[in-house]
């Protein structure tokens, strides 16, 4: 089946999925179960069940400190959960080292960019490639053994750099790039290995609007060529524009999920994002249905809060 049909089918199959947190998907790529991570008593991540559908773009949104980055860290082996297990593409990845996770096809970028500053942009890109025999100490000594692969890698790197408008910078040190350019470089570098699932932590933060437009195009292209995308983003415009499915996190838990239009019209989600309901249980479905009530409640709550502030000694 051609890639577009696969993607179309994957997207269509989401229509039938219930809009409840932790709902099973028809064709999940990543399935997390009971993943919990606390920092000194605070539950940074407390996900009962989450499935990420294959071949679509899933957005992970939620207020600051909701646990999105921590969830990425856990899934990719950069942090260890207190409890929980997860399966990626049929392979359990709990307790697996970060490098092996990446080799398995789940590649992430970082919210705080990690450009390799004293290496050139092109070297950064080449480092992202897989199957370079010259990365073995003994093979490295005999150039003919790795030079052909190096040429392929370089061609691929140049093509990606062109796409991300960084080709003119290829011989500059990555450390000399601007903040937005580093974001682009990191994303391009992650794509060098043709990941099955690419996890982008705020890919558009600091990228100028004109470029954002074309980057959105690249991300949908990625999906259309068979890569599954999971990204964290605060820019709701972008989320609405490109995602097929949205997962909302708050205080470590998945509190809502559904297609972007529906999730974002959801008053509870809006309020969670604005932070008015930091102690309302957003997991409560009743609240999701009665968005209107929440506005009034929010005002009442704000007043109540002001009261308790006064009462505190």
């Amino acid at each position, binding site marked *: 089946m051609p890639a577009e049909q696969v993607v179309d089918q994957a997207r269509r199959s989401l229509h039938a999925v219930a809009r409840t947190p932790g709902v099973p998907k028809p064709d999940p790529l990543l399935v997390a179960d009971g993943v919990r991570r606390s920092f000194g008593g605070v539950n940074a991540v407390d996900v009962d069940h989450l499935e990420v559908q294959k071949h679509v773009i899933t957005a992970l949104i939620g207020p600051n400190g909701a646990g999105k980055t921590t969830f990425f860290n856990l899934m990719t082996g950069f942090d260890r959960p207190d409890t929980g297990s997860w399966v990626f593409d049929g392979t359990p990845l709990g307790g697996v080292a970060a490098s092996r996770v990446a080799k398995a096809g789940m590649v992430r970028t970082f919210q705080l960019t990690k450009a390799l500053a004293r290496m050139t942009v092109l070297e950064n890109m080449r480092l992202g490639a897989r199957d370079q025999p010259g990365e073995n100490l003994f093979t490295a000594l005999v150039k003919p053994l790795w030079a052909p692969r190096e040429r392929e890698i370089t061609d691929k790197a140049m093509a990606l750099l062109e796409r991300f408008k960084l080709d003119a910078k290829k011989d500059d040190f990555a450390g000399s790039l601007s903040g937005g350019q580093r974001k682009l470089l990191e994303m391009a*570098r992650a794509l060098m290995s043709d990941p099955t699932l690419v996890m982008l932590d705020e890919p558009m933060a600091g990228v100028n609007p004109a470029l954002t437009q074309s980057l959105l195009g690249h991300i949908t292209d990625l999906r259309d060529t068979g890569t599954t995308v999971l990204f964290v983003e605060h820019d709701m415009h972008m989320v609405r524009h490109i995602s097929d499915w949205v997962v909302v996190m708050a205080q470590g838990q998945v509190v809502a999920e559904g297609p972007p239009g529906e999730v974002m019209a959801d008053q509870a989600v809006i309020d969670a994002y604005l932070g008015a309901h930091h102690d309302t249980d957003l997991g409560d479905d009743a609240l999701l249905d009665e968005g209107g009530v929440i506005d009034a409640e929010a005002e009442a709550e704000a007043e109540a809060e002001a009261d308790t502030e006064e009462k505190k000694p």
Partner: protein
Amino acid sequence: MDFGQLLTNVLTEMTGPTAIAYALAAIGLNIHFGLTGLINMGQAGFMLLGAYGFAVSTIAGAPLWLAFLVAIGAAVVFALILGLPTLKLRGDYLAIVTIAAAEIVRMVGRSTALTEITGGSEGLTGNSFKSTFQDASPLPDDRWALGPVTLATNASNSWWLRIVGWTLVLLACLFVWRLVRSPWGRVLRGIREDEDAVRALGKNVYSYKLQALVLGGVFGALGGVVFVLASSVQADSLGRPVTFNTWTILLLGGAATVLGPVLGSLLFWGALVFVRGFLRGAVPADVLSVQQVEQIGWVLVGITLILLIVFRPQGILGDKKELAINAR
């Protein structure tokens, strides 16, 4: 003052076994620090182990090639013992562990309990282990002059040792040059910059760091062998100051460059001998004793280095641009 003699002394020292030994040790340290960002504060420990490995096995009757292998093997084992538990942790731990481990090697080497094997604090005299190396020389036993420098062909600080030593340095440089420009070297430089980023790209950072530690340690051990082939094995002659001098040499020549360690070693020893010789000739002995001249030599070298770090922090061969980015 006899400037001709002074320059001859400088030249002899610059091309001598000490400079060769330090060049090799600094090449090893460059693989650790310049390439991978590992902070090894115990390079002298690797040198000392190499020296013991070579001398003890030779005394026990091993042929030359086996003695070299034992020296290399000792460094590999030492690197694994140090690296396996620490390289998963943050960088500082390796620094602490290496400085302590090098001291342990020195203490154990000079302890009376091991006098039978290591000679205790007296050490092992050169004549007890140099014969296989000197017998391997194709040169006739003689004294040859090349320009102003006249040396024995085979005994101790000899032409033969220099030929072998500089060949080792040359091979080491070629080896590092090849590796630096390979994908393997690229992964190491990535680790130096940000190991989490490299992990995220699917590279086994731990394994690469271990490889770098072992490889750099082996060059340290070879340096140790050259060092003692000119004199004797004496634990205290390969103590902490040797590690610090090696660091100085690396930073002087330029970390992360291929030839920096070699140039650093040449200049370091050349400058030291020049300053000492100059003071001895220019200042009357009743003003500065020979011992004081020795110490002032170190002081002046230290000041020169401070100036160099201030005005050329990337070292002589380093890339200024690269350093500026690091400072950001």
